[in-house]
């Protein structure tokens, strides 16, 4: 016994418990007991009536009553499942065949007994008269339709009327709330078959196939399933085949083989494809023998798509690739205006390297600034004489029209970059150059005002012939790169680049090396490109979203690499507008962004080396001691996420901005709304969507606008999301500010002063210190709002050589790409 019981026992021994019958109580007169019992009985009777809830006795349902009540009102404008549930009771002729609308009858398991009982009563409550209960003899009941059955009936009716969307809603409701109702499976099957039939009639074979697949899971023995699914498969496969979506077409047949392994369509199509593959193989060998390797490559790629299991396919592919190395690159950001020196446009920077090679190219960070190379010239700096000698290489590439880039062209181009009235004016170059002379047909000498630390960094421009520079007609400079765009073979989603026969070749090779052709294929989403990569439709994907890296984790024949230098992601405010021109407002908006969280989300919840939140406009480097981070002041910590501070500051700033707008004569901001423009790709979209959410939390509505980076930003935008390639900070930060903040009167004078001092740095430590000072000024002023730096990835199928070397952009060494022999 437990201690409590022991305690109670001890208590009971000391106290006479009232229920113990004592001698005294035994001696009570008997009449007293009778009286007590009688009183108790009376009390019970009265108490029952007084205290008990008066259960209404169901009245018997008479024909007169049923006649009065037999007008059920059912709302037909609202779907049944949105109405309060009810049942319908059908009575016999003796009750005027009345149909009564009832509150749901509490039947066991909500099942109507079948057959209906012949005796007894059914208690009902009328739907329209709650509280009125009636007893209906089972004999008078012809039918009792439960609500869920009514739903199924309505669904069936809608199916027959071909109103499938509405029918689906009914079925969905029943499946969710009444999954065990009888008849549900049949109605569902009816729905699937009818919808499939209708879809086939309308040519929507994809929907029909999906319905029939589901039907086969529910009822593989449905009598109409085989014929209908055969029709759907035939139509769908034919459609996809015609579009060239061979893998997708094969996928349909594979799906069918899993559901209905014996279906005749499977074997039919497989046979057809094998035949086609054999024919293609024959064609490949034929054109290869004829020397038309390009056509052979197209055919063999098609062959691989048609029937990847073709025997000897790998060897055939290797043979064709040897003859005609062609690479297909999956992209998500087309380059509208090819420019290999673009700071903010990924696509332009990428494809610019193919067709418009820069005079001097950045290849990666070095111990003192960046490392550069040039296919056009060699440079030599004489610090004593303050001259820069530029000698053109004999094997330099030619323009697409066959012209050579001469010393005169070079001198004119350098002079135009120093001319403040020319559109090519570049202030850091103009500051350095004192004079330019053509020393010989292959040599140009530049006299310098002072010796810059990295003169080659100032020569990052695309060669332009002098005649184009002098022309005011805005003529486009001819392409000069290892490849040429085949415009007639390109479309809005595919770009074909053929090897430029005028491109420079190395002197010790007689035959051209590298790819003969590169085809860029645009995909709307990165995962589509990754699917194509895994499926072999493309060989390379130029940019993989960090959060989608796991999609390639299990692909053994795909390699993922990182680009050598990260990009810096920033918000550039439109300083000419009152709100973003207000320092406090910019600070408030930055406090309102949880950058750590967004970055984590972009990285798929994982940590990536080199990806971090930053406090300034420069990259922080990817590791400790990374020379790329020499401009970044690591002692300046990023501002923390402070939403309450952001809310208060933004209010203050809003009122200040209204005041300033009135003084300037501009319309004051009326509503708490900002416009955020961003480039049209997934990383920017996702980041801006999250920024939008976080700004909404502090009471600001954000309108997102997509803007291509090769165009000027929309004039009404308040902030512009930018991914900047600040790889040579001394030069690139000036280019960035010049490009994105053209109205210099709004630029902070301290930032202007810091920028002006960069070019005059005598040595690298001084330059580093000045850049860090600039970091501090930008941090204080928030001339640009720093977000994070992000390392980017590219992926390629194994068997490709040349892509394993570290690079800053995809086509950095495109001339060395080749397929590895098997």
């Amino acid at each position: 016994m437990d201690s409590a019981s022991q305690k109670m026992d001890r208590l009971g021994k000391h106290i006479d418990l009232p229920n113990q019958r004592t001698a005294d109580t035994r001696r009570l007169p008997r009449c007293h007991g009778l009286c007590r019992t009688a009183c108790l009985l009376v009390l019970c009777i009265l108490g029952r009536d007084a205290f008990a809830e008066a259960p209404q006795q169901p009245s018997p349902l008479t024909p007169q009553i049923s006649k009065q009540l037999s007008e059920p009102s059912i709302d037909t404008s609202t779907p049944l499942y949105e109405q309060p549930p009810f049942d319908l009771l059908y009575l016999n002729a003796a009750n005027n065949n009345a149909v009564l609308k009832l509150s749901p009858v509490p039947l066991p398991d909500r099942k109507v007994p079948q057959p209906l009982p012949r005796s007894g009563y059914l208690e009902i409550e009328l739907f329209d008269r709650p509280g009125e209960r009636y007893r209906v003899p089972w004999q008078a009941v012809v039918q009792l339709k439960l609500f869920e059955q009514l739903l199924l009936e309505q669904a069936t009716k809608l199916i027959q009327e071909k109103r499938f969307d509405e029918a689906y809603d009914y079925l969905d409701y029943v499946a969710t709330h009444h999954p065990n109702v009888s008849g549900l499976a049949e109605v569902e099957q009816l729905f699937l078959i009818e919808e499939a039939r209708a879809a086939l009639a309308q040519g929507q074979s994809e929907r029909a196939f999906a319905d029939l697949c589901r039907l086969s899971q529910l009822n593989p023995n449905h009598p109409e399933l085989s014929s209908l699914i055969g029709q759907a498969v035939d139509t769908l496969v034919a459609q996809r085949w015609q579009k060239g979506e061979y893998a997708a077409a094969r996928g349909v047949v594979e799906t069918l083989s899993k559901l209905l392994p014996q279906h005749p369509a499977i074997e039919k199509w497989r046979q057809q494809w094998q035949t086609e593959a054999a024919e293609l193989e024959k064609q490949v060998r034929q054109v290869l023998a004829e020397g038309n390797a390009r056509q052979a490559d197209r055919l063999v790629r098609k062959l691989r798509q048609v029937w990847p299991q073709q025997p000897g396919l790998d060897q055939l592919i290797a043979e064709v690739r040897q003859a005609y190395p062609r690479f297909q690159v999956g992209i998500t950001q087309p380059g509208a205006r090819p420019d290999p020196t673009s700071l903010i446009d990924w696509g332009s920077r990428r494809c610019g390297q193919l067709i418009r090679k820069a005079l001097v190219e950045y290849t990666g960070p070095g111990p003192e600034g960046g490392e550069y190379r040039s296919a056009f010239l060699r440079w030599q700096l004489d610090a004593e004489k303050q001259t820069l000698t530029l000698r053109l290489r004999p094997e330099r590439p030619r323009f697409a029209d066959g012209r050579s880039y001469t010393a005169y062209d070079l001198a004119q181009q350098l002079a135009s970059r120093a001319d403040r009235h020319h559109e090519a004016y570049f202030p850091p170059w103009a500051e350095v150059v004192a004079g330019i002379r053509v020393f010989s047909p292959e040599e140009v000498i530049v006299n310098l005002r002072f010796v810059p630390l990295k003169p080659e960094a100032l020569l990052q421009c695309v060669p332009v012939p002098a005649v184009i520079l002098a022309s005011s007609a805005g003529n486009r400079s001819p392409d000069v790169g290892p490849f040429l765009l085949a415009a007639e073979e390109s479309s809005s989603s595919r770009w074909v680049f053929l090897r430029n026969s005028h491109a420079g070749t190395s002197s010790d090779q007689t035959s051209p090396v590298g790819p003969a052709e590169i085809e860029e294929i645009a995909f709307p989403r990165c995962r589509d490109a990754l699917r194509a990569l895994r499926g072999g439709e493309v060989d390379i994907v130029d940019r993989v979203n960090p959060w989608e890296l796991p999609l390639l984790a299990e692909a053994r024949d795909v390699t993922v690499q990182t680009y050598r230098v990260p990009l810096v992601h920033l918000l550039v405010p439109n300083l000419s507008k009152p709100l973003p021109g207000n320092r406090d407002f910019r600070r408030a908006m930055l406090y309102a962004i949880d950058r750590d969280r967004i970055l984590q989300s972009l990285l798929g919840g994982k940590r990536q080396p080199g990806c971090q939140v930053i406090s300034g406009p420069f990259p922080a480097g990817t590791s400790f001691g990374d020379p790329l981070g020499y401009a970044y002041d690591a002692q300046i910590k990023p501002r923390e996420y402070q939403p309450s501070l952001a809310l208060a500051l933004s209010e203050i700033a809003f009122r200040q901005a209204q005041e300033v707008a009135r003084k300037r004569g501009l319309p004051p901001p009326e509503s708490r709304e900002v416009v955020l423009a961003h480039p049209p790709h997934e990383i920017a979209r996702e980041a801006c969507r999250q920024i939008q959410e976080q700004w909404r939390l502090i009471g600001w509505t954000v309108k997102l606008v997509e803007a291509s980076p090769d165009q000027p930003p929309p004039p009404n935008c308040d902030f512009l999301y930018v991914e900047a390639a600040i790889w040579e900070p001394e030069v690139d930060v000036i280019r960035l500010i010049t490009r994105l903040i053209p109205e210099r009167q709004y630029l902070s004078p301290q930032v202007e002063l810091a920028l002006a001092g960069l070019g005059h740095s005598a040595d690298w430590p001084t330059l580093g210190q000045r850049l860090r000072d600039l970091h501090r000024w930008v941090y204080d002023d928030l001339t640009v709002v720093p977000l994070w730096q992000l390392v980017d990835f590219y992926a390629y199928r194994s068997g490709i050589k040349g892509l394993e070397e570290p690079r800053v952009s995809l086509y950095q060494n495109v001339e060395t790409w080749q397929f590895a022999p098997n």
Partner: protein
Amino acid sequence: MALSRQFCKSDEPSRNPATPITWWRPSGKHLPDPVGVRRQIKLAFYVSTGHMMRRQPIEKTRLLREALIAAAALAWLGAFPVVYGQSFFTLVPCRLNVICLLPPEIATSTGLEQEFCRQLGERLASEQGPAWRVSVAPPSAEDRAILRAALRRDLPFDPPTSWRKVALRDKVVVLAVKRTGLGWHVVSRDWDVRVERLGPLVEHTAPTWSGVLAAAAETVRRAVVPVAQIRLVEQQAVRLDLQGSLLMEERSPLPRRQFLALARYEDRDGNARAVVPLPWTILQSPEGPPAEDGSVSCQIISGLKNPLSARRRGRVQLLAWAVTPRSRSVVLSLRNRQDSQKPLVGYEVLAQPDGEGSPQFLGRTDFAGQVEIPTEDPPGWKLLWVKHGRRVLAKVPLVDGSTEFTELALPDDDPRLLAEGYLMSVQDQLVDLVTLRSVLIARLRARIAAGDWEQAIRLRDQLLQLKSREVFSSELTQQQQRLFCPDPVGQKQIDKMFEETRRLVNLYLNPREVEELVKEIAMKAPRRTDTP
């Protein structure tokens, strides 16, 4: 004219007989001194009368004549207050030498050339009346050498010595006529001897030879740049005595004009030692007819405090030379006053056209300290503001196209700007801190009122971790010691900014409120019992 001759000594050939004698104050101001004049007259009078008294008794007629002379002198003295304020420049005609360079086929024919010159002279004389004294002649051998340079904008011009002699002429107008495909091209340019400046090039075209004379007269008229003597009336206003304005037959309304102010330093012979423009100073005359005395009132617009009142040694004339705005941009270069080799980079330049309205941003100086000032349409003048951060360093006038390049020396304001930037960031930190502090205090009070002591203690700890007033002040002091501006005005502004920031820190970061809350928590919060 007669008055001026009374006071001229014609036996002094080096002096221009038309130039009135003006008495100079020891300060060198170009104003007649009435008191000194009276003293001199009186002394002369006493001397002469004394002389007269000491002489032999004279005849009555001689005595009467001398009495009349004395009376006339007294009358003249009485009129002097009216007369002394007037310069005689308005009564002096402008002596123009027009050098006419005709095309060879005309020039070789002496008769034609002379006839053209004569007709041009007569025409100009009849049009301008006594205000101009014109002589038109073909070029001499000496003149020919420099005529080309005079008519070209891009060639340096060094006039011969004779062109600098004010005694001989006031202006030399070079006129050239050339045959072109469209007829006859007439071009003219004015060289002013007093201010030693070339005027703008004026061009005209005549389709036939018969129209050349009229075209030539027109170009000469337009090429002649008005010159005036400056009379200082008030601190910010002057009167310009335009040369020969009272000799003009009609006093037609003058257009609104800008004048360049120059100081002409002369030697004892009246030849110019130097003609120096007063920097960043223009005189603006309103539209309208000149005053009764032929003068025009002008407003002084200058980047200097008292440009006309400065002490000048020697014989100095203050002259005004009309400037014609042109549609040509001007490159403004800002230089460090202490180190002229150092350009001032990143300084903002704004412009107020005609000195009115709010200043419009033009640009910032580039790496060479230069910025291009565009011209207005139509060209006029503008007031340039030079700003650096929040400080306005200069407000100077500039006439559109008056020159291609001009330089302005300013103090190096970079240290002050850096201080300003640093203090702005400190103020931002202060705003953030005060805001955050207010938010935490409000939340803390709410927690105390709700009795949520755990949260209250957490918020208290957050509050105590915020930067304190002492830390702020210490950082300010350290930074102030690092900053030094060589410009005393800039240094003063730096000190003032620091003082103001310190005041804000002391005002808004008062620790009393936080201390009270900490005490309140210490008193009211239940003690935590530590459980083993």
